[in-house]
């Protein structure tokens, strides 16, 4: 359900509180203590530990401790070299990118890390996975001029040349550099046949020590890790299906960190001394099927937006852990806002021909009642509450809402079998790729019920919006592109193809005993696990 896009700019606005909360790192006078075990419960057992086969957030959480990439996205959105010695050289025409690698890095089996491994991994993505996003299809050749340099040739300049190797993009970037020797040289035809799928070999701070299915994945210190760190001896990811038990484990020091918890427990966990960091990158919104008879009227969609009080949603539904949002551009500097005005909503509906009859009854037009169905995902108490809040607020302006709880919401919205649907989605960095894939006319999903052909589940169609996005796409200057995006967004907000509500908080938790961590909204919380220590 959660799809992330990676790009260049980072929402600086979010980083101020984050930077402030990083205080725990290095605060001790005597430096990091060595030893100890950190337990970080996960909800579901990963199916395998090959990050290219299994791209759930939980697998990433684990594989991030085993594998490394050429660069990482830092909490402030900068690219920092990891396996690369520095950021790469780009030729004047932008078509040739040359990476220089760090020397002296070893795989967890003791063999040296060289450019052959990077070439192997790049080919894995290009031919094995057939990834076309992020410009992989622009690459015409990958070579290794020396043991510590890699040269990529593109058919034209690819602005995502760093993202490709940043490890932050399940949508098409490397998820860790694989060892050519450990994975097998037979060619990456079938990923599950790679030797390193069952026996991961990485350059990261930890190595797989044992994995009992359905029980726990245990990782131990990688003695070949280049350092500094890791300070912990072990990190354990036990499978704990109940979110409630997760919380109880943290409070009783049976777990030292929790990932992506339910925001209901934030206050309780803070009271127990833990630090809770809410990465507000996920936008909860109400998708509207713009092709349905009632909702194809822009006045109805506008009225729904006017009738929903974002401030109340943040305060009462999301426990104050979230921020109100009104459009896709919620994470840029001067994010567009909207208004809450139920009276205006009522007027709009009346203008649209929907006449209020008896109090508490849905409005009526030509004998037809103003009734819509709202789809909400199952297994989430947050959405149950949000759904009912939306229902009651819309009822107040005369829109009757029936709620359907669905375990296959994605399929239904992709196939267009819905009126309204609550969901959330997030992205890291530049929102343009996100706006393209969600709202361009030719991004409408095919009827196969997959996300492959586009994410425009609202079936939004606006040549004007399409044109405005095209303008932003060719704008290389970041500030100017923001302006272009705002112009496109103004068209979007006028048409209101979906109603954005509030960021959806997925907080990470660090127990009071855990130190050295630094939250990174761009990455799974284990991105800096080498620096973690217990005291």
């Amino acid at each position, binding site marked *: 359900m959660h799809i992330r896009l990676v790009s260049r700019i980072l929402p600086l606005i979010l980083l101020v509180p984050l930077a402030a909360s990083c205080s725990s790192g290095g605060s001790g006078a005597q430096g990091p203590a060595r030893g100890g*075990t950190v337990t970080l*419960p996960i909800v*579901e*057992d990963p*199916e*395998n530990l090959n990050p290219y*086969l*299994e791209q759930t957030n939980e697998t990433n959480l684990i594989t991030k401790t085993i594998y490394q990439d050429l660069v990482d996205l830092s909490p402030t959105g900068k690219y920092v070299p990891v396996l690369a010695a520095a950021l790469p050289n780009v030729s004047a025409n932008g078509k040739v990118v040359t990476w220089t690698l760090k020397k002296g890095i070893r795989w967890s089996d003791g063999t040296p890390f060289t450019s052959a491994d990077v070439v192997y991994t790049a080919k894995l993505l290009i031919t094995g996975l057939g990834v076309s996003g992020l410009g992989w299809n622009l690459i015409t050749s990958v070579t290794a001029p020396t043991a510590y340099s890699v040269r990529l040739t593109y058919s034209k300049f690819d602005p995502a040349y760093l993202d490709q190797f940043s490890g932050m993009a399940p949508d098409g970037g490397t998820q860790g550099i694989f060892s050519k020797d450990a994975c097998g040289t037979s060619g990456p035809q*079938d990923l*599950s046949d790679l030797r390193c799928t069952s026996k991961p070999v990485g350059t990261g701070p930890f190595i797989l020590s*044992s994995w*009992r*299915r*359905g*029980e*726990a994945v*245990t990782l131990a210190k990688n003695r070949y890790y280049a350092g500094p760190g890791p300070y912990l001896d*072990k990190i*354990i990811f*036990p*499978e*704990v*299906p*109940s979110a*409630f*038990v997760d919380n*109880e*484990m943290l*409070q*009783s*020091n*049976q777990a030292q960190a929790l990932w992506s918890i339910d925001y209901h427990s934030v206050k309780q966990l803070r009271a127990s001394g833990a630090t809770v960091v809410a990465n507000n990158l996920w936008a909860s919104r109400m998708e509207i099927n713009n092709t349905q008879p009632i909702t194809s009227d822009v006045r109805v969609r506008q009225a729904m937006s006017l009738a929903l009080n974002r401030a109340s949603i943040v305060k009462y539904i999301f426990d104050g852990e979230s921020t109100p949002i009104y459009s896709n551009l919620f994470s840029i500097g001067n994010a567009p806002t909207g208004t809450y005005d139920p009276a205006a909503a009522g007027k709009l509906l009346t203008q649209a021909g929907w006449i209020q009859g008896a109090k508490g009854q849905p409005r009526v037009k030509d004998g037809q009642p103003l009734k819509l169905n709202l789809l909400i995902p199952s*297994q989430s108490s947050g959405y149950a509450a949000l759904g009912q809040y939306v229902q009651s607020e819309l009822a107040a302006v005369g829109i009757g809402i029936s709620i359907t709880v669905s*375990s*296959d919401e*994605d*399929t239904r919205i992709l196939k267009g079998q819905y009126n309204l649907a609550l969901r959330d989605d997030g992205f890291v960095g530049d929102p343009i790729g996100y706006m393209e894939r969600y709202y361009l006319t030719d991004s409408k999903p095919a009827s*196969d*019920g*997959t*996300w492959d052909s586009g994410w425009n589940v609202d079936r939004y169609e606006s040549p004007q919006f399409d044109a405005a996005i095209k303008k932003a796409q060719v704008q290389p200057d970041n500030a100017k592109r923001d302006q272009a995006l705002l112009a496109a967004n103004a068209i979007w907000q006028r048409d209101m193809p979906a109603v954005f509500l509030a960021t959806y908080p997925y907080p990470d938790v660090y127990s009071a005993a855990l130190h050295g961590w630094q939250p990174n909204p761009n990455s799974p919380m284990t991105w800096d696990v080498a620096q973690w220590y217990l005291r």
Partner: protein
Amino acid sequence: MVSQVAEAPADSSAGRPADRRAGVAWAVRVRQFVMATLSVAMTLLIICVATFGLMQLVPGGPLAALGGSHGKASHQQIQLLTHEFLLNKPAYLQFWAWLRSSLQGHFGYSLVSGSPVAQLIQARILPSVELFVAIASVSVAIAWVLGLWLAKHEGGWVDRLVLSVTGVAQGIPAFWIGVLIIYVLVKTGGPSGPILPIAGSESYQSSGIALGDLFSHLILPTFVGATVVTSYYIRVVRDLAVDALQDDYVHVARAKGLSEMRVVNMHVGKNIIGPLLGLMGADLPSILTGLVAVEEIFSWPGLGQLLASSSARQDYPVVLAITVISGAIAIVSMRLSRLLADWIGTGRREVLSARTGGQ
């Protein structure tokens, strides 16, 4: 009515005490054994058909997940599966293909991970067995001791208190007690943590098997899983014992001048063990499925948890296999428990006989 149950609709499967006493000929025993095996096989076949049929009702068929958002199977894997399990053929052919390969221990592949189902299930059997054995032994032991004691002190205030408590406890859902116990233990445990581990089956600290560690992890799930069963069995044992204390042999034993303790423990108690063990076997299906909730709450890595997570991910081959295997375990255990009860030789096998479908 009780004695009538034993004569229930005729079927000649398991050996009757009367036959044993008569010293039946070998041929008859073989025939009985064959008949019993056949009837078990028949029952198993019905379970397989029913489960497979259920899977056919899943929207899009058992392979719906292959194309869905959960599916990770490659095109080649789909082709392979389609070929191996005749997925493009009519349902009865699919059933036949699945049955044939299942009988060889090959239950197909997980739609989510692509690993063999048998391998996934194998890893989960031991934890489930541990938990089941713990629950079964704890509840039988407590029920036996307490039930006998109550029967001896029938009508006393302890008797009435226990009857009331167990009467209410029988109705409590296991997951509910589980959640509240964890909540209370953590709350009262303070910063040093609860006195017992609340999740998983071990601490993963040592590489070998640490029995003490396993036991400490077993305590809470066992307690929660056993509450309802134990409450119920205490009442059963008490009723059986109260009844048995009226029997002639007890009067004879008393008349012989045996102490009351000896009478109750040796004579009555011994006679109750059979039916109690039998009951446990007969209740196995419901206890087994009841473990889903206990395993979910306590993160116990057993079959129930695998079933729940596979169902949520629409991984139907795994669900199909677990259901059929559990059914098989249940049916065999029910039959065995009846034999066991017979062998222990109490006169109360009618209890079981009615439980297990009346043969």
